[in-house]
């Protein structure tokens, strides 16, 4: 056995000297690591779901507009529909779907009630690849069809304000692309309730053809909406689209289309960091406590070891190795527990659908939370716990290696 092997063997056996204490420390590290990983997985899943809940019903992953449209949302910023550009984008890698849109503000009236709204004209066939709004139509209604020039689908809250139901006729008044008054009666085909509260309050959806007609678009549209094959390919795809559009266009990806989601995620991540830091500290102090107690209890033993010629550096290495073993086992167990817990909530997400009305009151639109496991979180957590173990073991190890043999041998 080499000196190194002896150090490792001594450390390993020392870990098992006090089984109860070692077990408690493993459990502290394991529980802390598992909770950190589980929390991170829940955050990942929650954020992904929030993004999906914002992107899927309405915005899509990427939109191409004329510059200024997104801030003003008026037909003044519509652009001439360019089939060549449309087809070029359509044939790009990672494009799952692309559709033309016309959207602008308007006033909807039903009997004595009226409400400001956003009217969105879409091609329902193409939009099936981009948004999921048709899935949110409540029973008793239906989504608009491509050829339906008289139908409208309203958000539930908007319908409530208008006191309109399926089959009712509502009147739209707005301004056309050419500056004329745009006015038309629409039949309510369906009422949707999407995960996004804002859309439920303000959105009315009509067919693209109806929008072209009512707003006198003269071949213009306000946006091309695009869905990428997955969220991670959005940035690359947006860059490619930018390279084929001129300066009059703006290519906006989901994070700019839904900045509030990014803000919420940033805020939530910050509070999550605090919680995770507390967990890391619990783990770190668990390690410190074990190593400190273990060093304190063995003061005389270290005195003897130093007396018979053990170098201080060997004692230092031995204690750090003990800390490594305790941490490694705790982390391994924590990873298994964290993975298991996260996996369970990946398969069986937390569903708060039955508390929908309460959550709507607090403007929480995401009702289903699942966990999403990321290997990078596992690597990060294990590296941080190891670093903490190293830092928090360093001082007890240094203390033990610097003990005065005479004084320490008086300890019992």
């Amino acid at each position: 056995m080499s000196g190194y092997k002896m150090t490792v063997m001594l450390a390993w056996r020392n870990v098992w000297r006090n089984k109860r204490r070692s077990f408690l420390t493993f459990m502290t590290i394991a529980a802390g690591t598992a909770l950190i990983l589980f929390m991170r997985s829940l955050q990942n899943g929650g954020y992904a779901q929030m993004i999906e809940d914002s992107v899927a019903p309405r915005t899509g992953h990427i939109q191409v507009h004329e510059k200024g449209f997104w801030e003003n949302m008026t037909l003044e910023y519509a652009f001439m529909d360019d089939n060549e550009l449309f087809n070029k984008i359509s044939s790009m890698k990672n494009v799952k779907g692309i559709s033309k849109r016309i959207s602008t503000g308007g006033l909807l009236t039903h009997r004595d009630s009226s409400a400001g709204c956003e009217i969105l004209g879409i091609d329902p066939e193409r939009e099936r690849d981009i948004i999921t709004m048709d899935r949110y139509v409540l029973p008793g209604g239906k989504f608009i069809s491509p050829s339906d020039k008289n139908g409208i689908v309203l958000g539930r809250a908007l319908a409530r304000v208008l006191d309109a139901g399926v089959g009712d006729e509502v009147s739209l008044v707005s301004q056309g692309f050419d500056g004329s008054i745009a006015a038309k009666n629409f039949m309510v085909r369906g009422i949707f309730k999407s995960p996004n509260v804002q859309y439920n309050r303000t959105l009315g959806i009509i067919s693209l053809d109806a929008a072209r007609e009512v707003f006198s678009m003269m071949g213009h549209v306000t946006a091309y909406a695009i869905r990428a094959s997955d969220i991670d390919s959005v940035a690359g795809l947006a860059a490619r689209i930018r390279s084929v559009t001129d300066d009059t266009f703006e290519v906006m990806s989901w994070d700019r289309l839904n900045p509030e989601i990014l803000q919420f995620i940033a805020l939530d991540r910050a509070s999550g960091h605090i919680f995770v830091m507390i967990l890391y500290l619990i783990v770190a102090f668990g390690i410190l406590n074990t190593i400190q107690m273990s060093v304190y209890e063995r003061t005389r033993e270290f005195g003897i070891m130093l007396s018979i010629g053990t170098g201080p550096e060997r004692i230092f290495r031995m204690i750090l190795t003990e800390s490594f073993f305790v941490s490694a086992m705790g982390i391994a167990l924590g990873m298994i527990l964290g993975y298991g817990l996260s996996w369970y909530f990946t398969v069986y997400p937390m569903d708060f659908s039955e508390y929908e009305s309460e959550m709507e009151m607090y403007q929480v639109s995401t009702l289903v939370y699942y966990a999403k496991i990321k290997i990078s979180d596992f690597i990060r957590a294990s590296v941080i716990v190891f670093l903490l173990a190293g830092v928090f073991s360093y001082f007890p190890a240094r203390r033990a290696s610097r003990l005065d043999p005479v004084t320490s041998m008086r300890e019992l």
Partner: protein
Amino acid sequence: MGKGVRMKVIEIKNLHKTYQSNGQEVHALRGIDLDIESGEFSAIAGPSGSGKTTLLNVMGGIDRPDEGDVIISGQTMKGLSESELSKIRLNRIGFIFQAYNLIPVLSAVENVEYVMLLQGVEKHERREKALAMLRDVGLEKESHRRPAQLSGGQQQRVAVARAIVSGPEIVLADEPTANLDQKTGSSLLDLMKNLNHERGTTFLFSTHDPMVMDRAERLIRITDGRITL
């Protein structure tokens, strides 16, 4: 191996040591001069607090004197760094303490091997020597037991084996029989005496046990930090 020509193993010159105890200055050693020759079986005797353990610690390089010098086989210990002192303790001195001498997580044979391992002795040679040493101290059958599974006397025998296995120039034993009953203590002394005769190992004890004093070939009396021959 018998005793041949005697050489000075340790020379002590004008050793002074003062330490603080409960806020009071204690003069543990007050100008000690002493020579220990190879093959001696000697005891430093004195009442509690007379300075015998301090003297042994300073001789072994575990403690440093305030004044004076300890020379081991011509090598002065004055001005040596901790690491140099550690090497001297490892290679030239064997230690036996009152109790709790052994590393609890190592078996008897591993405890005996430990010092040789620090010295860089090859595994095979190390194990062979350690087992032979345990055989010499009558513990061959207990070689794989850990200290907690051994009696106090057996533990001290393992400590003796560890102290002499690598052939140190001197073995310093601080009250080695203090925690043992008379029979076990006597048996331990017999063992050390045999090793002294057969191997020529130099033993120096600190003790206030009359049995140890009786067996010692030379008795060095110490009182209030002074040798009172």
